[in-house]
């Protein structure tokens, strides 16, 4: 049964917003990305052959779109301003979000990771994908994903220990 676009937006927009946010670290751009993803999906929904679930398909689109943003001049400009010491608009919004939500400690810690570690942590813990699914989604070997998850856990552990959150991630997940 095909869902209407209203149902799809209602069902997946928040989930995709979180995915995009973890990639681009900026709520405003994340919102734009999600909007683009839905528009593209709506235009090209005939191409969706239901070989994977709709959630996976939309996640893949969001990941690709987020990478497009990260490669774009807009993103690099923000990064440059941040390094030079200027606060770009987007970083303001990120800061505001963080300030308004004091309880975002774990997200802050995840955002400190490099993108390649951030994305595996995101897809594994937040997206509930298996290692094989992540490997397929990112076109990366299983072993690489495993090692990245392991390293990301260790890094997270260090970051969270520094911020008084006794962690975690030694576990058997």
């Amino acid at each position, binding site marked *: 049964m095909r869902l209407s*676009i209203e149902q799809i937006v209602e069902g997946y927009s928040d989930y995709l*917003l979180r995915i995009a946010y973890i990639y681009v670290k900026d*709520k405003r751009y994340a919102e734009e990305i999600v909007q683009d993803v839905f*528009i593209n999906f709506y*235009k090209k929904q005939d191409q969706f052959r239901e070989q994977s679930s709709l959630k996976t398909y939309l996640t893949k689109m969001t990941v690709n779109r987020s990478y497009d943003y990260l490669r774009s001049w807009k993103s690099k400009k923000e990064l440059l301003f941040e390094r030079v010491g200027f606060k770009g608009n987007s970083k303001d919004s990120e800061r505001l979000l963080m300030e308004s939500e004091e*309880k975002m400690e*774990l*997200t802050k810690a995840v955002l400190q990771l490099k993108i390649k570690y951030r994305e595996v942590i995101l897809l594994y*813990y937040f997206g509930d994908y298996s290692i094989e699914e992540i490997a397929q989604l990112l076109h990366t070997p299983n072993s690489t994903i495993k090692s990245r998850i392991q390293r990301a856990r260790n890094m997270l552990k260090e970051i969270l220990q520094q911020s008084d959150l006794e962690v975690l991630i030694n576990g058997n*997940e």
Partner: protein
Amino acid sequence: MEMNDFKEKWKKELDTNLQFTQQEKTQIINKIVSSQNNKIHKGNWAYNTVLAGFTILGLFFIMITLSDRSFTLNTMTLGSRHLDEIEFTSNFYWFLIIYILTVFTITALIFTIIKTTRWENKKWILYIKIYAERKYVPLLIFFYFLLAIPTFLVVNILQILFLQLWLVLIVSALNCIYLLWCIRNSEQAACPHCGCQFSSRKIFSMSWNAYRTKCDKCNERIFHSTSSKKKNSSMFPVLFLTYFILGFFQFPFPFILMSFLLNSLVFNLYISKFTMSFSKEDEPLW
């Protein structure tokens, strides 16, 4: 905190702090619907701009060249005198150059025909292959020696302008052979979606219409691939080098132009069928 705790807490954290309001969701839905109703196609302006830029630049240079009388008229009327100065009027030198280039052209043509994979099963290729065997090489060399006699006679009869024309034609033929050599292992372009091979006419029309081309069979949109653009552009420097060399030796500009047009015609009508390849997505220029 165990890993599962982290997972649950992080999810809860994201769920509570990152979400669209109902109003934002409604706005997204409205934008999606309006984007579908808005049928204006946003073209890829970069290609058109680059193409138009080069055309204008080309026209500009042609106009400058035509208005520069010292270039065109001198080369037209005084071309032979320039060649006098560098002592190329001697019939023997003309004969030597024309003869060597002719022999080289014939040899290159034979090699190209033999090495072209898509002609392997043609009957006429088999005949050429038979005569290209080692035991017939002395015969070929004998033929080359025989060729020297008519060449020498004709060179002595013709005026300098016709000798220049002859040489330019040989260079054009060499250029064509070079183009054929470049595509010796290439196959005719096919649709990336359904794999059907395009007809020559279809490829010709598509080579001049890079946008909004569709496969006739599956009706899917197709685009020129970056590799085909690179392949096409990598062939031309050699051709332009030959024109430059001809220009350097003060060959008449109309002859060089004729050679350029001849090679362009061959490229557009035949070579591009094999250099072009298509992709499903619009790829960047490089």
